[in-house]
């Protein structure tokens, strides 16, 4: 009786562990700011990453015929660190120049840009910085 339980647990735990690490493997993404990307580009070449930064004011262009946005993401602290972003699709409602966003997409070092697949803007609920 006891052996059956042990076998059951072992099977369950190993299946679980397998899924856990496989899942991690498939979805781990580096989360960097623009400056990190500029200093260590080779680490992220052609990988899907998340980059956070500020949408540079005046840089957003929409090519309507392709529904594609082109803009520049600048570092949160150092505005001289920059990376170009290309994104086709619908941007979140609160997306606008000057706000902080997280861009998820493939870093194409040769073209010097990120082909974005997702743009995340801070959550709707009001987070207060300090109480």
């Amino acid at each position, binding site marked *: *009786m006891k052996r*059956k*339980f042990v076998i*059951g*647990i072992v099977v*369950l735990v190993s*299946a*679980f562990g397998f*899924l*856990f690490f*496989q*899942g*991690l493997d*498939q*979805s*781990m*993404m*580096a*989360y*960097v700011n623009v400056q990190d990307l500029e200093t260590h580009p080779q680490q992220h070449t052609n990988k899907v990453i*998340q980059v956070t930064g500020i949408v540079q004011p005046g840089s957003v262009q*929409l090519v*309507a*015929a392709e*529904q594609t946005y082109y803009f520049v993401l600048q570092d949160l602290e150092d505005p001289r660190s920059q990376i170009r972003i290309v994104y086709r*699709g*619908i941007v979140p*409602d*609160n997306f606008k120049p000057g706000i902080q966003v997280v861009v*998820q997409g493939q870093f194409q070092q040769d073209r010097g840009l990120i082909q974005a697949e997702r743009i995340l803007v*801070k*959550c*709707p*609920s*009001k*987070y*207060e*910085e*300090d*109480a």
Partner: protein
Amino acid sequence: MIEIGKVALLFSVILSFYTIVVSYLGYRQRLGYFLESSRRAMISSFALLTIAITLLSYALVTKNYEIKYVAENVSNNLPAFYAFSALWAGQSGSLLLWAWLLNLFIVIVIFQNRDRHLVLMPYVIATLAGILLFFMVLLAFFSNPFERLGFTVMEGQGLNPLLQNPGMMFHPPTLYLGYVGFSVPFAFAIAALLTRKLDSEWIVSTRRWTIFSWLLLTIGIVLGAKWAYVELGWGGYWGWDPVENASFMPWLTGTAFLHSIMIQERKGMLKIWNVSLIIITFLLTILGTFITRSGIIASVHSFGASKLGYVFIVFLVTSAAFSLYLILTRKDELRSENKLDSFLSRESSFLFNNWILVGAAFAIFWGTLFPVISEAVRGVKITVGPPFFNTITIPIGILLILITGICPLISWRKATLNNFIRNFLYPGAVFVLLLIGLLLAGIRNLYALMSFSLIGFVLTSIVMEFYRGVKARRRYDPNVLVALKNLVWKFRRRYGGYIVHVGVMLAFVGITGSSAFSTEKDQILKKGEIMTIKNYQLKFLGVDQFRTANAEVLSASFEVYQDGKRLGILNPSKHYHPLQDQTMTEVAIRSTWKEDLYLILGGVQSDGSVFLKVHINPLVSWIWWGTYILIVGALIAMWPGRRPVASSAGARKAVQPDKAAFDLVENES
């Protein structure tokens, strides 16, 4: 008025502290009037908090911008209805709501148990007062909703337009009711540990609280999903966002707890497990509130800036350490009274169900906190996306469905192979037939095949349970419907539970359908052009422009045809809110039992053409319908009936309740 609010909060801090001390001393020194005083302190504190919350609501509705919270969360043209809901739109307001609900529950617990559970009650009240004290300290010293703005403004910042939705109004309070509700069984568990009264009394007496909290948490989560689906406009209802995960984790452990307490009640087993589960569930509700309110996951840096975060961490760690200490020092008393009789028994299927649910919670926990942990440990921030959560939860979900189906087929203690096979016959046949049917229909997605066929298996096994029960009852009630009614009503918990399972299975149909078979397409359309997706044709008629009370609207019109048959007009739109300088995308959804046609207006261009994105999400409405059935089942299961056995006649007869409590203590020691 503002000062009254502040003073009320301060006094409530003092009263909760006083309650902890007095109920502890009252229990130790056996002073009945101390215990009476602790109850009165909690009732007074409730009166004070009710005044505070009323004042804040009044200030919100009358737009009293002297108060910072009001100025930050409402605006002049906001209807009273939404102004009131701003009570839980910001941090300090929602903490006040939390505290008020908790105090309300404490008062209900006090009145429910005036003459019951006399040994446990002093510590139950002390524990609940301890939780209340934590929230009151937060409110009074770290995040005071009555803080003054300090300067004069004529117009507030307004309520986030995303929160201006009737469904959204009820999502946070429902979730909070569920969160707060779990404090009650938690407090009873702690009281049982402290008094070493570790039989099933604490479980039996909080059974309905547990179902209630679980139900409210479920409704809160589903409302949140529905809101995301209708309002956020990205085409789905669940994105494995940290805030969503925060509410899902206590739901999983709470579900496990609901199941495993049945084993303890029946067989006196799994005592450590149950105590641990409710403690973990409680800690997860606090963690959930923390994650939701602090935004720590979105940015770790915001955490360092906020003192609130540290207070939360201190509370979490202290509660966890205290609980762990209690369990370790009472290990021997928590030993099982019985052993599992067999591997093939209902008990062991409950056990497997528990492991799986807790395993899922564990995985989600790591996935959610991964960015924070990786940054703290390695200095590099690494996130895990939805694929991680899907990889792990989909197989777990399917396994859970399987166990839900097998459980009623196996008997308690030890199932003989013979009766197992006999019970297995019909559900097994349905499973095989469904599998063949779905394969013939061209479905090749393994997970979807398993999920749908197993749901058929589960539903058949539940129907058989009802059938057998009704058949047996017909000896007393010849009429089938009367027999069914009496069966369910006489064994509310059991059959209510089965109805909940039916609801969950229907929701699983929707979840499977929409995650495995949804399609999407986008296109730029000029006026008069037609977009085709699957068997739908969408003809773009043009864009209308108009104004509402607080928004400028661009509304596109699409004539929808299915296989050439006209179905009607859909109007996805963009609402621009000038006050917040924010645009809102309002999706248009045509929902049937088969699938949802979901239209998102991406943008309107200068030449009048539009960018349209269309999703077809199969079976989504099954999730909402499943939830309705779940609610009915849970209500049946928790409907009050006979008083639990734990309220012994002797205790109830006692004239002086507190004296009786001490007699009980004395008898035991």
